[in-house]
């Protein structure tokens, strides 16, 4: 699986990291009831960074990125996205959500709307974009993810890989500054994984700030500028991908890598 992206030359030189801070997380903690899922998370992400988050099942990866657009609420510490601090203030939450796109493992497309309607819904209702303009934008992004001809179909008529690419296009239509991916390929068959990863690589080449929870280590090596390893709700190790894969420091990281890369 890790070779899925290697047959495509990735243009890393285009991926520039600026010094502008996109996301800042300061000593953030989260509990589910009494269970301490996220423990003292500190993370700063700059504009243009591509971060891959990995770790064993149940380590809190999904919870972490879901906190960034407030699908989950944190109980202590700070999360600041594009200068807006997440609190219970609904206005700030809506503001952050319209700046941050998210792709889910199970796509979460709206089955009662066509692909086009899926893509234009949020721009029309949240951004108040005129319908014609929203449709033009949607068509642009559907072409980008290479499925413009499916625009008038319903999600149920598309393959998994196509659905995930629609989900990416749907998020892009909101012109987000940050994209979050929660295991976007783990519900897909191998040949579809590649088409989705290709789309994600293109995004990275255009300088999108990305946080990806994924087990596609090939993708991490090709695209990420930082890999974060989480275990038991904590950030255990982070490093640039070459060093992370070839010279892991922590015992937990070594164990995880040996399992996932097949010794």
């Amino acid at each position: 699986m890790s070779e899925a992206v290697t047959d495509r030359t990735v243009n890393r030189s285009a991926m520039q990291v600026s010094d502008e801070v996109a996301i800042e997380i300061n000593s953030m903690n989260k509990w589910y009831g009494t269970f301490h899922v996220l423990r003292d998370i500190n993370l700063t992400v700059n504009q243009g960074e591509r971060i891959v988050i990995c770790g064993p099942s149940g380590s809190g990866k999904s919870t972490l990125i879901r906190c960034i657009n407030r699908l989950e609420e944190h109980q202590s510490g700070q999360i600041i996205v594009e200068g807006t601090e997440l609190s219970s203030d609904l206005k700030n939450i809506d503001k952050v959500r319209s700046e941050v796109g998210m792709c889910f493992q199970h796509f979460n497309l709206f089955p009662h709307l066509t692909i086009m309607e899926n893509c234009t819904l949020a721009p029309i209702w949240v951004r108040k974009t005129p319908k014609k303009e929203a449709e033009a934008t949607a068509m642009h992004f559907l072409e980008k993810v290479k499925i413009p001809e499916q625009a008038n179909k319903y999600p149920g008529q598309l393959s998994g890989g196509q659905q995930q690419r629609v989900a990416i296009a749907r998020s892009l239509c909101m012109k987000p500054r940050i994209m979050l991916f929660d295991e976007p390929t783990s519900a897909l068959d191998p040949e579809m994984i590649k088409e989705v990863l290709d789309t994600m690589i293109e995004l990275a080449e255009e300088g999108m700030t990305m946080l990806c929870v994924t087990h596609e280590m090939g993708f991490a090596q090709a695209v990420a500028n930082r890999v974060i390893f989480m275990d038991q709700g904590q950030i255990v190790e982070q490093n640039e991908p070459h060093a992370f894969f070839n010279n892991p420091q922590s015992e937990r990281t070594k164990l995880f890598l040996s399992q996932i890369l097949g010794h």
Partner: protein
Amino acid sequence: MSDTHAQTVAYVREGMLEQQAPPTKEAGAIRWLRENLFPTWLNAIMTLVAIYVIWYLLSGLLPWIISPTWFSGSLSECREILTGAGQSTHQACWGVIRDRWDQLVFGFYPQELYWRPVLALVVLLAGLAPILFGRFPKWFLGFSMASPFIIFLLLWGGPIWFPVMVALGFVLGAVAFRSAVRFNQIVGVLAAILVPILFWLFLAEPIADALTSVLPIGLESISSKQFGGFLLSIVIGVAAIVLSLPLGIMLALGRASDLFIVTKLSVGFIEIIRGVPLIVWLFTASLLLNYFLPPGTNFDLTLRVIIMVTLFSAAYIAEVVRGGLAAVPKGQYEGADSLGLSYWQSMQLIVLPQALKISIPGIVNTFIGLFKDTTLVLFIGLLDPLGLTSTIRASTDWNGIYWELYVFIGLMFFIACFSMGRYSLHLEKKLQREHR
């Protein structure tokens, strides 16, 4: 080439197969009979028994139903016709339906004004069309929204300003919601509820009176006591159906909400309303409410009944819709949230369309029950078709007639309820086709 293929395990297809049409089912009536009615001995016996039972029932019923009495003007005339034709007098006397048709349909509505309920029905059907069958021009929806007030004016008459004031209350509520929701969701909802209520209680009547004295246009006023028959059933049934759907949806959303007070209020309302028989609520409407209302207020009994029936069926709708809401996957809520849609937007655009689609059979089921329950108003002295049967029997002409009226009324209700059921099936199929 071919013999090497036969000997080795390896196989290479040399040409691809063209697509072929699926095999058609063999047709023919005999084949159908054998497959569906007489496939085995046991099934054959059961088929024969069923045919005998059907024949037995029909041979008893049909002679009673097929009776040449359509033009008789009284029960005794019926007997004359039947004995004159040399038939047994144990046959239906359908003259009563023809003779009392107007009364069964319109109750005691003034005869020269029958055009008003008929026109109201046309307005109703036209107003419902875009909602029931979709894809109509936008301005038509405006007509749909105005149609309840037009219908009210046509049926009850009176000065035009009263329904205008009621409509204005709704407009004010919408405006209040728009302007208050910017500060806070809850304030918006409260404003949307309070502003129209205050307007109706304190401002609507004086303004309407003032306007009436200046510009006295309107229709001849009809009192609720003159309503009756199917007109009454349809007025109560349709009004309650149209009103209880939005109310029930709001209650279901309230029950599923995160806000403690809203949840508890919705649950309390739903449980109290549906925990008590409808007939008790109807007695409350007709008797008890007089004690609570300020003396001298003359709050129309039919309107009170409509409100009670609406609340009652809203509680049931709320539970049906709650089931639909629970069936919408969590990912849909998250997908909507992650795009930055507000609560009301995600409900209106994402969650409710899916939840309501799932709830259609339950909702229509509730409506069918509601429509049949409108006959309960006979116990509080309103003359629905069933109530009219005793009025009709009280005349000397038709003293002693029972079955013909009940069969006819039953048939009418059956047609109405069966159509609703068919419509629900049509809607389900249509939505299934659209969404796959």
